[in-house]
């Protein structure tokens, strides 16, 4: 399909910079974005009738957000922009997209997927109670809707987002009841060596923590979550063990939880890209070369959808993937552009690894989850059911476990529970988590209305 356009999926930092670079080379890419407004998650735009200044929304990153938005707006006449459109499948004729009830088949010569990431979740008893949200959700509520998820939220999990969101809530006049971090202080110090490569980012994080502490917000490190409590079907408290093993409790009316991020890799999977297990992020992801080329010659990946390095890296990786697309398509791209982007990304790689080391995914919590804890929130499948698949039903890997007791079988296709379910399965079978594999993707990537029709 050499005559077909280049497609960019996603219009966050990676997708925007990719599209921009393609336009610079004289191409007119198709940009397909699930959101109604460009920006992705981290630089998500508020609705048009909202008036807060970028500084309010994006803090220290306001200039970057504004630049990403402005640059995209300038691109509009030069791209085929399809907002509010979901890529849900892949056929021999092209990508299957849907907007409302209209399905369109989009042929492509090459495609750059910048599908971003979602929160990485470790279930805890009570996490399906109304009032419990992902950290990302807590932030989106604030940024995109000027709402707090509660009056007195607890933020629990690990990773830089934990402190950023808590601080943003504090700025918005909502004082968190507590910030609970599963990572120990000593672990964080170890990761700091690598993170030192981006001193400004580290300094921001330290500042958030200091501001929170100064405002009297309790910050606890090295905790073990025990339960989200509820009364009358709403969150009423959080119970955890502190670093010395003492059982602690905080009253609250909402929880924002998250343990770093997980890449959205379904589209690469549907396109049959080869996957590898990434020991740094302890998750499966598509294999890419340093320019974002996958095992498939017409598919490229950039941004957090393949490597969890954050928004700055996503901008560089998006541009880089576009450079690779251009060069592979016979356009001239100077070596120096590749070299410069590689240099930028080397720093980001180091930083990303440092973050993963400083705020490790608490895989060990999976083993201790009570049998009656819901893991798959769509299908209401408990940890005990996954353990039954592992034991009595002898499922050696995730897809078999899913076939037999349904974890990951619901509407979200395991986005929320998949990684935690894999840890539970691996723990129950006493094997490393990579050995239980990953859930295969099935179309439609998101629920597809049965009354849609193909528009040509």
């Amino acid at each position: 399909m050499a005559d077909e356009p280049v497609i960019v999926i996603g219009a966050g930092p990676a997708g925007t910079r990719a599209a921009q670079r393609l336009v610079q080379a004289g191409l007119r890419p198709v940009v397909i974005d699930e959101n109604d407004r460009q920006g992705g998650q981290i630089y998500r735009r508020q609705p048009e009738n909202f008036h807060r200044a970028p500084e309010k929304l994006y803090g220290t990153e306001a200039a970057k957000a504004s630049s990403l938005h402005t640059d995209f707006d300038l691109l509009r006449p030069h791209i085929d922009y399809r907002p509010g459109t979901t890529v849900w499948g892949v056929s021999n004729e092209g990508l299957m997209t849907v907007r409302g009830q209209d399905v369109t088949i989009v042929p492509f010569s090459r495609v750059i997927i910048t599908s971003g990431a979602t929160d990485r979740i470790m279930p805890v008893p009570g996490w399906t109670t109304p009032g419990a949200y992902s950290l990302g959700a807590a932030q989106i509520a604030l940024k995109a809707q000027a709402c707090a998820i509660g009056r007195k939220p607890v933020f629990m999990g690990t990773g830089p987002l934990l402190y950023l969101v808590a601080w943003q809530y504090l700025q918005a006049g909502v004082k968190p009841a507590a910030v609970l971090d599963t990572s120990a202080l000593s672990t964080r110090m170890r990761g700091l060596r690598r993170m030192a490569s981006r001193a400004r980012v580290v300094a921001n994080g330290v500042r958030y923590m200091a501001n929170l502490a100064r405002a009297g917000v309790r910050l606890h490190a090295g905790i073990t979550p025990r339960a989200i409590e509820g009364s009358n079907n709403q969150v009423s408290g959080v119970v955890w063990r502190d670093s010395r093993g003492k059982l602690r409790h905080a009253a609250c009316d909402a929880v924002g939880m998250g343990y770093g991020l997980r890449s959205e890799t379904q589209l690469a999977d549907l396109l049959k890209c080869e996957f590898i297990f990434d020991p740094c992020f302890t998750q499966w992801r598509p294999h890419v070369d340093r320019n974002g080329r996958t095992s498939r010659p017409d598919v490229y990946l950039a941004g957090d959808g393949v490597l969890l390095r954050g928004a700055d890296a996503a901008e560089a990786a998006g541009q880089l993937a576009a450079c690779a697309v251009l060069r592979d398509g016979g356009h001239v791209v100077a070596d120096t552009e590749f070299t410069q982007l590689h240099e930028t990304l080397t720093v980001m790689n180091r930083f990303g690894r440092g973050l993963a080391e400083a705020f490790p995914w608490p895989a060990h919590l999976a083993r201790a989850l009570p049998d009656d804890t819901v893991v798959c929130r769509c299908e209401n499948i408990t940890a005990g059911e996954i353990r039954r698949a592992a034991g009595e039903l002898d499922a050696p890997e995730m897809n078999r476990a899913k076939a037999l007791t349904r974890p990951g079988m619901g509407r979200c296709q395991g986005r929320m529970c998949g990684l935690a379910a894999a840890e539970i399965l691996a723990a129950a079978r006493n094997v490393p988590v990579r050995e239980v594999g990953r859930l295969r993707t099935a179309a439609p990537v998101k629920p597809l209305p049965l009354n849609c029709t193909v528009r040509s």
Partner: protein
Amino acid sequence: MTAYPTNRMQADVIIVGGGFMGAATAFFLRRQGLSVILLERDLVGQAASGVNFGNVRRQSRYLGQLPLANRSRDIWLNMPRLIGEDAEFVMSGHILVTTSEKDGDRLEKYAVDCKPYGLDLTIMTGAQARAKFPMVGPEIRTVSYSPLDGHANPRLAAPAFGRAARRAGARVIENTEVCAITKSAEDFIVETRNGQSFQAPLLQISSGAWGRAMAASFGEDIPFAANGPQMGVTEPLPYRIEPVIGCASSVPEEGVYLRQVKRGNIVFGGGLRSVADIVTKRAPIDPLNTMRQMPHLARLVPQMARLRIIRTWSGVEGYVGDNLPIMGPSSRVPGLFFAFGFCGHGFQLGPGVGMTMAELIATGRTDIPLEPFHIKRFQ
């Protein structure tokens, strides 16, 4: 029952292929007192047995298959006592619906023809059908209702028989691919990719779409194709569609079917099939086929149009040229038996095939007529 032979690489019977047919045969062979080794390339029930629609349907089958289907249905009802689980079997009833007069005539004729075989069908007009099954759409005219048929969960059934076979003493060996089968003076020698060798005087090939090559290696080739069913499932809803609903149209694209499971999701399939690749073990689900199914599903149950599909899938199924399975003894090699190529309608038959093949292998005879399925029909 005989104990295991001391040499664990030997048994009375080797079964190659742990789909529903192989797993059920292994289970029933143990009840016949024979020692069994079941060799499965991947995991039991993972291919066609695990991805099909889950129809436990007798109506519209080839008439000569009804005795086998009747036997199978009795086992479905008895499964909790037999193997300790029901694989979510529900005797929900099954309706075949038509939108054209010609197809309606065919249903009426079948309802008469199947009666001597003990299958009682009720023919209804569209209005009668809508009175009893109000979810059915206004375009539906003649309906054939089989109250004693139903559906079950294909992901659970074959693995359940595999575990039951193991509990009953069969040696069920997964992740073991057979690469060569030869026959010495007395025994079949079965070699596997991981360097093992197994031996038995009796051997059943029940390797689904991969059975053709194995049969051909004994000089018994057949016309054969590997296809992929196009399946999907909606989000869960209150349980309000009891019967399985299938369209009996003679136009392949219109021939969709659906069932609601008690948890609430509606499983559907039918229409066109994709071409499967037995080398890569992949059968594509073509999203355009999913799109083609939508309007036909809405003709059966108009309110389905309001729902959302949450997942689609396919799997490798084996189809014989005349759309009947290969089941019974080899016509050339004594001690060799076949049970494969069930052409996308084998799920209901699984338990019956297992019991019948076990009977045939253990005693040399069965009361179930298998003549139409004999491999010699292609020689």
